[in-house]
């Protein structure tokens, strides 16, 4: 499991914000944690998948996509803040993500 430092959340947040600003062609300043990814900025599932890949590479994570998918069925993500929370859990728990629900 990846080591979470004080800076990890800040780093994740920065990556997520910049990613959506670029992908959805919106002003970075217009985004906040309550921004709805699909309704407000026209995001889509491929962007979510792309972000997962970004973090998998960055933190050298060992996690199967289907593990994230199974977790997302029970904990759906709608806002940027929720997405950041989920990414933090993915980084922290990797393939043991589903154990969180046990």
């Amino acid at each position: 499991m990846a080591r979470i430092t004080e800076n990890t959340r800040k780093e994740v947040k920065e990556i997520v914000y910049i990613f959506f600003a670029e992908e959805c062609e919106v002003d970075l300043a217009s985004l906040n944690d309550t921004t709805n990814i699909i309704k407000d900025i026209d995001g889509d599932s491929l962007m979510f998948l792309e972000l997962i890949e970004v973090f998998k590479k960055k933190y050298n994570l060992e996690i199967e996509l289907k593990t994230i998918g199974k977790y997302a069925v029970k904990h759906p993500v709608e806002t940027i803040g929720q997405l950041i929370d989920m990414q933090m859990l993915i980084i922290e728990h990797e393939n043991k993500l589903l154990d969180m629900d046990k």
Partner: protein
Amino acid sequence: MPDQKLAFIFPAFASEYPEDPCEGLPGFEKYFRTFLQKASGSVDNRLSRFHYSLQNFLDDELRNQYISYILSCSLADYFRDQYFMPGYSAGYSMGIYASLYQAGAISFEDGLQMIRLAYHEIRQITEGKQYGMGTVIGLSLEDIERIIARNFKTIEITNQNSIYSFVLSGSFDEIITMVEIVRNEGALHTRLIQVTVPYHSTIIQGIDEKFTRSLAGIPVLKPQTKIISLADQSVLQDADALKKEVIRNLFSHLNWFKTQLRLQELGVTRFLECGPGSGLVKNSKFISGDFTFSDSKSYMNLKESRGEQMPTR
């Protein structure tokens, strides 16, 4: 001279239209309206009523195919007149007809006839039964094959877009159930495609002989651009190969993922999606290699931002 590093890719049908599809393409609207008028006179006069938001035929399977073909052919001609000459082209699913038109192998009107014939003949073969198609993102090929083998009789994987993205065809009931099962098995995204027939499935293989006879009167010429088959990634360079491809395309499993990789092997470094939307551009982020994949608008911007001059006639 064709640019051997450039490939035009023609998508299947639209699921939505951008607010202004002509934005960033000065003069394009004239091309589109001219083709729309031709199509209205040739196969369906209601096409002349098309409007991107008010009357876009997104819920009409056949007209949606016509409009996608018309947009794709308009873009092909528009880019030709801007001196963009691809060395290769490929038609994703029903985008095959626009690919043949761009390569000079068929006339615009004959492409419309092929779409009409294919649609009606598939309808005949599937009459009385309900079919559907869906996409699954986030599971591996092995996972999907395992789920199909355990649960379904009619579902086939009919296209692979990337390592994580698949298109399925089968009976409507099974597709609906499949979508539910794969979500619970960890798929990140599923979507039903707005069609009622199982394109690229062996379910409609019986169309082979009849469609061959129907197409017999439509002339197909040697292509001026090399076309890559989505069925087996071969390079199609003569009329006979194209005729066979048009027929087998309807009931053969396709593989876009392998097709893009094949084009990269052949030296293509720039892909241009010629049609409504930018689904293949988005999909390309999950395919490795040293290439750029643009939609029509971003491609024009890219050329201009690099200071490349558009030749004038």
